[in-house]
């Protein structure tokens, strides 16, 4: 074995031993689980202040009480998936891609899944959304309540 072969073998060993650096996580997504209902007096959880104006627009204006059930934050890189447990099931998020556009907000490709408490998938959507905009999957719960999951990524 001559010297050049030794060098090549060493490089291969180093390549195996040294792990490649992790992909840069550059998108942080905020997930807020909300329970909506109708009461005698409107009530909005102070933690939901950022969504207050949205709640007053249809179709969310059909409820007047919004309660935060929980929240999670997922930091994702493109083609990376994350999950968070909900009070009413399980939430899955996939960051499919990031489209940087000059003069416009970055466009994010998201895959959103929601499973109910029984583990049954009730929502599976692919959506394109600008960074900072909200996507709110909503479904009814017994008792004329609503189950909302507000998702925004930056």
């Amino acid at each position: 074995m001559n010297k050049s072969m030794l060098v090549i073998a060493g490089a291969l060993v180093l390549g195996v031993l040294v792990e490649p650096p992790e992909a840069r996580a550059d998108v942080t997504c905020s997930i807020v689980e909300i329970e909506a209902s109708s009461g005698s007096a409107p009530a909005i959880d102070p933690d939901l202040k950022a969504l207050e104006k949205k709640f007053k627009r249809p179709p969310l204006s059909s409820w007047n009480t919004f309660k935060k059930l929980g929240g999670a934050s997922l930091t994702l890189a493109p083609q990376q998936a994350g999950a968070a447990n909900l009070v009413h099931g399980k939430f899955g998020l996939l960051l499919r891609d990031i489209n940087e556009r000059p003069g416009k907000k970055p466009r994010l490709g998201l895959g959103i899944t929601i499973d109910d408490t029984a583990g049954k998938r009730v929502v599976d959507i692919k959506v394109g959304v600008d960074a900072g905009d909200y996507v709110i999957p909503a479904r009814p719960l017994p008792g004329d309540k609503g189950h909302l999951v507000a998702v925004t990524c930056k």
Partner: protein
Amino acid sequence: MLAADGEAPATDLGPEARQTTAAVRELGELVRGSLELSADDAEPRLAGLWDLIERRLDVAEAPAAAPVAAPAARPSLGARIWSWLAGHRSHVATGLLSAGAVAGLSMALGPAPTEKVVVKTVTVPAVQPTVMTGSPPEVESMELIGGSGTVFTIGDDDGDGDTAVIWVEPDEVDPTEGI
């Protein structure tokens, strides 16, 4: 005549010849003295003439020497300047030293430079803030198991971005969920 010139002995001469010889000799003395006086009178003029001849001889000798020397090439301007500087090295050095001394003295003894603060009002054109335009959310695919869906878009009326509400209506609502 031979006896008068001293070429023949005077003993062989008669009384008459002796008188004639004495007269010739006396006449010769007179002529000789006269000539010597004339020569003495002409000596200053002859001396000036000799100087003139000598100077003319010097002038006449100079062209004769020229063909002997090799014809010298005309030096270039730079060479002439350098030659001049080399010839006047001491003058140039003295001039430079004097100029340097004067400059140093004027800098050392002169007034210190004063700083001037000039206040100018510059009008900066107003920079328009960059507005990042956006697009409403767009549902590319929706898969709902045991239900149907409706997409509502809440516009960006308040400047906080668009919102997509995806309302999922299941065929049957589990009566136990959420209780």
